[in-house]
């Protein structure tokens, strides 16, 4: 039975509510139009370049110039604010589905259009994609190990000038599987590799959204609402897709594993083993997704996930070791390095300022790690006693992003797909609340007179 048909068959609705429901499509269309307009403004203005919000990049979007003006903080922040408010409205409206409410076709159209607009535009808000390309070119074009050297080692390569100044001496912190996946892009040239990265991010996002839809169906939730929660989230498509971040590839692996497990409710040990293997493979793309594994194992209490995880780890680690040596599989060292960074958007930094301190001190890093360990232990105990492991994993990812001193917009996306399909609705509220605080924190330039 289709979703629309399913909701059509619901119990009778009071007349007042019915009249409200009749207005949902119109309201959603207006909000969707606002989102599309705001996103188009960001992309068209961003295509002009010469903006602190648009990283210096090879020319991939000059065909869009001539319509927009240079993207300033004020326009960007207003567009982000408009998108966020419209998103909140659409998510709220999606609860009122049924009897002519938001249709699946409309939701897919909106999410597809937002993705398309961002995809054809310039790289937004981050230089990370150039680091990915640099690491690939180091290995393929120059025979330099990206786990032992930073892009500085290929300062003569055309990609070097586009790598963020802070990352030029930094060896890769990404998993060996991601680096191997990006290797075929290296011979495509700089522009070719950049488009390949954008296509990869687009496909990863599409795959993630398809799996969110599937998982929502498997759990008996409204798939249209789940799709809108993730796919129409401004941080997801503006920051995540706009920057072609590999977090989207990681999330694809994450949702693939969750879908396999949900499809295996009952006795399919092969699917559970495959799910665990996929989580480990995801962790070899970006380590964060490994957070799901202990929750899955504790929830299932079977041998299959453990065997799947071990086999996957051995295979990928051996491949990584063969290509990159021991540094290619030493993900812990990379995580420790990143954990020592501090970003101005981190809650740790904000709390330090609230307490009258100039910033985060080493003792604060230790306190935050202790807090995170306690939270994870509590969640593991709850999972052991029957709590939804998908929700527990989502809470753990949210806790990581909140307690980390290095927070970026695409880090607070990690728990979102899980929040959209989990049984504990508090997780969705908490995730969107944290994202809302992030958006509020960006608004400083808008509030400084003449800023």
């Amino acid at each position: 039975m289709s979703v629309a048909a399913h909701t059509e068959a619901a119990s009778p609705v009071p007349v007042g509510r019915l009249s409200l429901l009749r207005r949902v499509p119109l309201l959603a269309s207006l909000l969707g139009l606002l989102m599309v307009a705001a996103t188009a403004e960001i992309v068209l203005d961003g295509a002009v370049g010469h903006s602190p919000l648009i990283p210096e990049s090879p020319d991939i979007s000059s065909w869009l110039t001539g319509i927009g003006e240079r993207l300033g903080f004020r326009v960007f922040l207003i567009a982000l604010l408009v998108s966020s408010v419209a998103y909140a409205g659409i998510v709220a409206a999606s609860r009122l589905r049924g009897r002519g409410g938001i249709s699946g076709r409309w939701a897919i159209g909106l999410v597809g259009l937002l993705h398309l607009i961002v995809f054809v535009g310039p790289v937004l808000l981050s230089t990370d994609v150039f680091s990915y390309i640099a690491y690939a070119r180091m290995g393929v074009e120059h025979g330099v190990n990206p786990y032992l050297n930073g892009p500085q080692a290929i300062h003569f390569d055309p990609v070097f000038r586009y790598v963020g100044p802070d990352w030029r001496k930094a060896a890769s912190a990404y998993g060996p599987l991601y680096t191997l996946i990006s290797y075929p892009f290296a011979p495509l040239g700089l522009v070719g590799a950049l488009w390949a990265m954008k296509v990869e991010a687009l496909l990863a996002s599409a795959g993630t959204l398809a799996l969110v839809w599937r998982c929502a169906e498997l759990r008996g939730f409204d798939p249209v609402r789940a799709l809108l929660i993730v796919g129409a989230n401004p941080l997801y498509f503006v920051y995540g897709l706009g920057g072609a971040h590999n977090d989207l590839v990681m999330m694809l692996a994450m949702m693939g594993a969750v879908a396999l497990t949900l499809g295996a409710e009952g006795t399919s040990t092969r699917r559970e083993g495959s799910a665990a293997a996929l989580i480990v493979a995801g962790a070899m793309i970006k380590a964060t997704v490994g957070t799901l594994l202990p929750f899955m194992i504790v929830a299932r209490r079977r041998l299959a996930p453990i065997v799947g995880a071990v086999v996957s780890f051995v295979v990928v680690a051996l491949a990584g070791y063969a290509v990159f040596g021991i540094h290619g599989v030493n993900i812990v060292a990379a995580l420790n390095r990143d954990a020592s960074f501090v970003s101005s958007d981190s809650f740790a930094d904000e709390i330090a300022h609230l307490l009258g301190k100039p910033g985060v001190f080493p003792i604060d890093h230790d306190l935050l790690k202790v807090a995170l360990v306690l939270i994870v232990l509590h969640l593991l105990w709850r999972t052991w006693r029957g709590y939804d492991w998908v929700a527990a994993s989502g809470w753990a990812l949210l806790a990581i992003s909140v307690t980390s001193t290095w927070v970026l917009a695409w880090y607070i996306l990690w728990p979102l797909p899980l929040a959209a399909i989990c049984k504990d609705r508090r997780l969705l509220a908490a995730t969107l609340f944290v994202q809302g605080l992030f958006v509020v924190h960006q608004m400083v330039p808008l509030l400084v007179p003449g800023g």
Partner: protein
Amino acid sequence: MIDFTTPSSNSDRFFDRLPHWLRPRTVELPGKGYLRMVELVVLVLVGLFLAVATVNDVGRGVNIGKRLKVDMNTWRVYTHHDYKNIGVDQTLLGTGTSKEVVCGNDSPGPPKERVQICLMVEGPTRAGLREVTGGWYLGAFVQEDNFEDRYGCFGKAGAKGLCPR
């Protein structure tokens, strides 16, 4: 209906020897909701704390933004140059001290490609300006404000030995 008193699956027989409260479960016990309530209270308190910290940080950022505009205005008034590309360093004289160093070219040209005048600015804002307590010069094409690149220190900068002798 789910039997909450028995282990969740055959594979859980291994855990039968554990005390009742330690045994794993596939579905949570309905209970009286105390744990959920405690979790919810903690979540609300943490959320409020994060919200206060965020709003406080936004206010702090706005104040810093206003002060930086005053600093740049002070530099323009002091040097009589109405230039756009002026840099403000908030950390050189101590993080969180609100004492800043403002640098800009002393003659028209691309940023940092002329001799630069750097001013130490501190104190409260009066009539849209802050007090200039000292400063120094940097040579043309000097990208970073390093000790060895400074010369001609004046005011507090000279007294504090911020230039090489």
